[in-house]
């Protein structure tokens, strides 16, 4: 069956809408995840979203709500256990391993559809119900609103925390806000690509964008664009090859863009500079002995 046929179907339209929304939020937070060195935090949050989803599935047959609660709990744990990055990463590792174990235990008790477990791990956007879709829309709207409001001070705090604090930016508070936004985004992304593959939307597009530009606005735009191309492209491709999960295509497209960006990046990113290298700059204000 062709893509054209699928695009007539409400379930496919819903899936595309959800994927686009998730991609926009993931692409939006991606540059901050990279800048703040939080790749492992994203992965940890996603793994624990798995535990939450398994619990949600078992208790209320609602993996989305479970994943949401799970990732919010993790965000709170990360915030309390690890302030510094090294401490944070080891705390996340400890929580992640334990949480995954609990998740597997919970799934062992689940007597529903056998595919439910793999859907949590590897995503199945077509399995998302209308009400869950609504949850995703609300999550997406919250993430976009928060990021749109705090983008500039959050970037300042991420890049240059010392001066940001001196300039009156609530650096620690914004860090907590970002953890919450991250938890929400991860919950959404897990529905599309699965908890195991969240990084393909939350990191890879931003990493690719950073190879191409150092302009914060352009990096944000490219990161969102790449995430949307990967998510929607992967979904459309899965209409054609229905025996392959959409997440396979999404991760592949995402990685392809990343490779391409790495390849052409050096040429594109450097084109705006002059050839200053490491030489000394003579300047009108230079000291008495300018090199």
């Amino acid at each position, binding site marked *: 069956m062709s893509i054209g046929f699928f695009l007539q179907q409400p379930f496919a339209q819903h899936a595309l809408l959800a994927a686009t929304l998730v991609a926009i939020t993931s692409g939006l937070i991606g540059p901050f995840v990279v*800048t703040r060195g939080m790749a492992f935090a994203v992965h940890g949050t996603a793994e624990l979203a798995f535990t939450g989803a398994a619990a949600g599935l078992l208790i209320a047959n609602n993996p989305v709500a479970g994943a949401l609660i799970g990732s919010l709990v993790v965000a709170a744990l990360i915030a309390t256990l690890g302030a510094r990055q090294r401490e944070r990463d080891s705390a996340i590792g400890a929580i992640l391993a334990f949480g995954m174990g609990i998740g597997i235990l919970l799934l062992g008790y689940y007597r529903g559809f056998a595919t439910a477990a793999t859907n949590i791990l590897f995503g199945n956007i077509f399995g998302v119900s209308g009400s869950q879709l609504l949850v995703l829309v609300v999550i997406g709207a919250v993430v976009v609103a928060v990021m749109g409001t705090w983008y*500039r001070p959050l970037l300042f705090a991420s890049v240059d925390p010392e001066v*940001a604090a*001196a*300039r009156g930016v609530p650096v620690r508070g914004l860090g907590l806000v970002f953890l919450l936004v991250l938890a929400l985004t991860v919950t959404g992304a897990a529905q599309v690509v699965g908890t195991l593959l969240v990084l393909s939307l939350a990191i890879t597009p931003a990493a690719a964008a950073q190879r191409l*530009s*150092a302009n914060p606005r352009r990096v944000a735009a490219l990161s969102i664009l790449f995430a949307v191309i990967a998510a929607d492209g992967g979904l459309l491709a899965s209409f054609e090859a229905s025996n392959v999960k959409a997440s396979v295509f999404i991760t592949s497209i995402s990685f392809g863009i990343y490779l391409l960006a790495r390849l052409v990046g050096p040429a594109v990113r450097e084109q705006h500079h002059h050839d200053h290298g490491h030489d000394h700059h003579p*300047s009108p*204000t*230079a000291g008495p002995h300018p090199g």
Partner: protein
Amino acid sequence: MSDGAAVTLRGATLRFGHHAVWENLDLDVTPGECLAILGPNGSGKTTLLQVLLGLLPLTAGAVSIDGHPPRRGSPAVGYVPQQHAFDRDLPVRGRDLVQFGLDGHRRGLPRTRSRQVDAAVAAVGATAYAGAPIGQLSGGEQQRLRIAQALVGEPRLLLCDEPLLSLDPSSQQEVVSLINQYRQTRGATVVFVTHELNPVVRVVDRVLYVASGRWAAGSTEDVMTTETLSALYGAHIDVIRVHDRLVVVGGEGPGGIGTHHFDAEPADARLDHDHHHPHGGPHRR
């Protein structure tokens, strides 16, 4: 509080638990003055700046800036931090760093073009490389942009925390010149936290030396003496003049006299080889 002082400290005391960082500090910095805060590592120089930035409250005593208590993010105060390495692929350009100094604390999306930023970048002679990723610039280039970042909001008080650290001597001189130029044209007050007095000695009006919880303030000639520093440290300290440079030598500690002890900091000397050649010399980073 005396009228018209840019910075006033009265009985200012800071303790962490039972440890007194400094006690009963009294100081008036007059508008347009350049003050160097000196002392060994851990003597509370940076914490004093944090107090002035409104990031840390005093344990006792009073502090005011332009007659008001310090306030976080006050537009009247500019801040230049230590040079530190940025990631090479950080998605931020030099000019974005300067832009942050203007509006980084405001909500919304980042702005990318502004005439004020262009002017601030030009004023420090960084126009040629302001569009390059910040992580790919040299330490000296980054510090110039730092100064543009601190000055773009046209502060009346500029606080600098070891702005010369890890810079080669000619970059140090450029940074000092830029800051002094701003001070002179705007009548701004400048406070340098540093443990190397020599690079700033020609622009400094007064010195505040903190050590072992004690302090001394006055002109360079008054404070940087064998008697004053020995009294501060409670141990014999030699202050020697070699040509136009001050050399502070602690009683104990490794290293030979006059080889490494050019810092305004006695005892265990930092071994900083390049800096013995004040006039150029090799400045590889």
